[in-house]
């Protein structure tokens, strides 16, 4: 199209020498495990500090279990997260930001049905400032009237924007379909509830729920772990309560059943979202299930992606992931497909689920997934931010750095037979889910396919 005298595609794809052999892998070099201190302070806060990485930074993650059964809880929690860092006795919103910026730092708070999460980072030399701003907010957040009312108004509009995103709609529908009115399903609060939140309600929620006992603080970076824990001990000594932060009530098991079609006006693509019950991450069957899941749809070289993307072109991405809470684990399968091929994609997903459960993965499939799982842990924890997030993910389940260090051996020990057994979690009848799309276009085909409840 540009070069006047270009070669043909056929010519480009062949050299005189012909195909070459793939080079073998070299001997792996073992990584060092980060020096870590993992302890529970007198106030009940678990602190994990790890020295890791080559850049002069520190990454911060704080998880406060933050569940609430009250229907008004999600709205109050959302306003709390949005205004936690907007004022204390010592600082207003601007001085919080400028104090952080002086040490190259940031802090953000977000909330979901399970927890209040605070993430941050700063130059390692500024860690005390980062912790000072954080503990100032944890112990003295004042929720100024004008900040709460301003943020409340903006939240109402941001919620409208969030609910216009297909992925948010689909997630909300799936949660409702799986868990009904369990608090876990209340992710995005209702705008009408947010509009009624008062500063005093937020202050009360803070007093009752922003608690150290049961919470976890992770600090990873160019730091001395033992000295860091002492710094945290000193700086959080004013954060005290006999009560414990609130964990989510136990989740019911996901039961297989019909997929529900949800209409979205004007949709040109459909969101397919399916789920089945699995095991907690702490279960001894998890490593085998992790490998089975990769084979199914957990990475690009999986049966599902190779089928519905690379063979049929139905989707840009298809995924199979886990969702873990402390005592529970589920499988989530997702793909977005054009309306015309949505029913066909559903058929292929069902086929691949059934095939995985009935036809055990080959040795080659298991080995590839095993290597990806081992290598993925290495690459994803090679950065400070990656390790901090991973440590927090496993800490929420009661695990720590030891579990991460031992996980490659756990994966190496998984037998082919164990993967075949784990694959049975994927029988199609174990799954339920939703399809969000243009029901006018999808209804007929999905009705024909069966197992779909139409609107």
């Amino acid at each position, binding site marked *: *199209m540009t070069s006047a005298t270009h070669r043909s595609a056929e010519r480009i794809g062949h050299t005189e020498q012909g195909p070459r052999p793939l080079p073998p892998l070299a001997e792996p070099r073992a990584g060092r495990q980060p020096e870590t201190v993992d302890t529970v302070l007198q106030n009940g806060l678990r602190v994990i500090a790890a020295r890791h*990485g080559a850049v002069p930074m520190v990454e911060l993650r704080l998880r406060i279990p933050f569940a609430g059964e009250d229907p008004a809880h999600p709205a109050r929690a959302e306003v709390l997260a949005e205004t936690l860092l907007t004022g204390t006795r010592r600082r207003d919103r601007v001085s919080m930001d400028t104090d*952080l910026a002086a040490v190259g730092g940031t802090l953000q708070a977000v909330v979901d049905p399970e927890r209040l999460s605070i993430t941050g980072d700063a130059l390692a030399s500024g860690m005390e400032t980062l912790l000072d701003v954080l503990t100032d907010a944890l112990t003295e957040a004042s929720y100024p009237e004008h900040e709460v009312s301003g943020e409340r108004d903006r939240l109402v509009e941001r919620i409208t924007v969030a609910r216009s995103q297909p992925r948010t709609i689909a997630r909300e529908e799936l949660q409702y379909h799986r868990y009904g009115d369990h608090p876990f399903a209340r992710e995005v609060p209702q705008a009408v509830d947010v509009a009624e939140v008062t500063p005093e309600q937020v202050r009360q929620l803070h007093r009752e729920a922003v608690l150290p006992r049961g919470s976890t603080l992770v600090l990873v970076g160019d730091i001395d772990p033992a000295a860091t824990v002492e710094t945290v001990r000193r700086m959080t000594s004013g954060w005290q309560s006999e009560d414990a932060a609130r964990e989510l009530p136990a989740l019911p098991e996901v039961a297989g059943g019909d997929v529900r079609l949800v*209409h979205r006006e004007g949709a040109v693509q459909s969101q397919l979202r399916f789920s089945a019950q699995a095991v907690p991450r702490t279960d001894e069957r998890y490593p085998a299930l992790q490998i089975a899941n990769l084979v199914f749809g957990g990475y690009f070289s999986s049966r599902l992606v190779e089928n519905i993307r690379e063979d049929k072109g139905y989707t840009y991405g298809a995924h199979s992931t886990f969702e873990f809470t402390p005592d529970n684990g589920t499988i989530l399968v997702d793909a977005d497909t*054009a309306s015309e091929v949505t029913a066909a994609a559903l058929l292929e997903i069902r086929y691949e689920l059934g095939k995985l459960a009935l036809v055990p993965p080959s040795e080659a499939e298991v080995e590839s997934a095993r290597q990806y799982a081992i290598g993925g842990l290495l690459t994803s924890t090679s950065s400070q931010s990656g390790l901090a997030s991973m440590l927090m993910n496993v800490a929420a389940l009661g695990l720590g750095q030891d579990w991460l260090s031992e996980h490659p051996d756990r994966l190496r020990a998984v037998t082919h037979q164990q993967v075949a057994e784990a694959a049975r979690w994927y029988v199609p009848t174990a799954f339920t889910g939703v399809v969000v799309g243009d029901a006018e276009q999808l209804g007929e085909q999905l009705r024909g396919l069966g197992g779909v409840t139409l609107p």
Partner: protein
Amino acid sequence: MVEPQPHRVTLPNGLRVVLAPDAEPGSTSPGGPPVVGVSVHYDVGFRSEPEGRTGFAHLFEHLMFQGSESLEKLAHFRHVQGSGGIFNGSTHQDYTDYFQVLPSNALERALFLEADRMRAPRLTEENLRNQVDVVKEEIRLNVLNRPYGGFPWILLPPVLYSTFANAHNGYGDFTDLERATVDDCAAFFDTYYAPGNAVLTITGDIDVDHATDLVHKHFGDVPARSVPERPSFAEPAPSGELRDRHQDPHAPLPAVALGYRLPDPVGELDEYLANVVLAAVLSDGDASRLQQRLVYRDSLVVDVHAGAGLMGAPLDARDPDTFTITAIHSPEVTTDRVVDAVDSELERLATEGPTAEELSRVTARWSAGLHRDHDRLVSRTLDLGSTELLHGRAELVGELPARVGAVTAEEVASAAKALRPEARAVLEIEPTSEADGGAA
């Protein structure tokens, strides 16, 4: 921290190679984790695709994953992931990148995979049709089926720019994508994917001499081909305010994007960096000017963002490049009120400049952000590669904190002064649906 100086080799076929080890050769330091990053940047992006073939550079990027002489379809993915690694590629205005991050024992394998597709990719009708379908799904996902899709990177350029190269949609129209032929692919490859038009970057847990030997072994016999003369995409700056509207059936709230021309990122780097600082003074953090004024004081907008660069990051393109300010606002607030408030803040900065405290805040955050970014091997690898390609000096990556730190209040004031209403584009997003977010 001082970034280690990258090493540089150029092969006889013209391939430029940048090597950035965790530890210097001979060092006794234990180095970082046993992970390597490998990337190849080709000096062609979507500004180079011809009329009638919008989206072709990106489509071709997909084709490069579809096999090569020694690798069947799917083999690339399987070899990278089966070695414990990750991969991806992305298409920008002026370049296309491909990368892997893997355990360091898979370095030779990654080099083999990149060399094989640089030498002899398999460009077939079947794979082309399959990837046209995949790309159309990607566009539905990221643009057509969601609110604010393509805002502002696809929607703003046709307002601000007049030439096809700068104005057209880099994701492509479906009709153009469907028209693409295997012979188009062959022509594109032969024209732009010559080794002399590419930069190979290797970072992380490597020994420079060993890695250099492996580069010669695998890339040494990729035949040299002529390298196209790089076209200039220069066009005159607008001589008035250019306005347009876009109707978005999925958006619940109106939005506005302002687009301005930036100084030449390569030829006027320090002036460009003053704009990078300006963007941070305007919208980075709760204490920034536009957050304070538009979000917290006047409650005009839900979100506001200012930035140098069209695709979300500065220094990602050659000239011409775009400074953008975007905001989502409630329907009760008119576009003019939002734009007037932006103008008055720009005017204030142009007259008074930022305070010393604002400048040091921005500088500290920027350096920290760069450290943090480069702690991720994939970012470090891609930054070194794109900087070598666009600026000819990967070293610039390590020098940026000092250069940004040297930007003065006067330079930021000048940058603010140059963002004039009479030389900008204003794009409004009009929600056209009454839907309350959709789910009935």
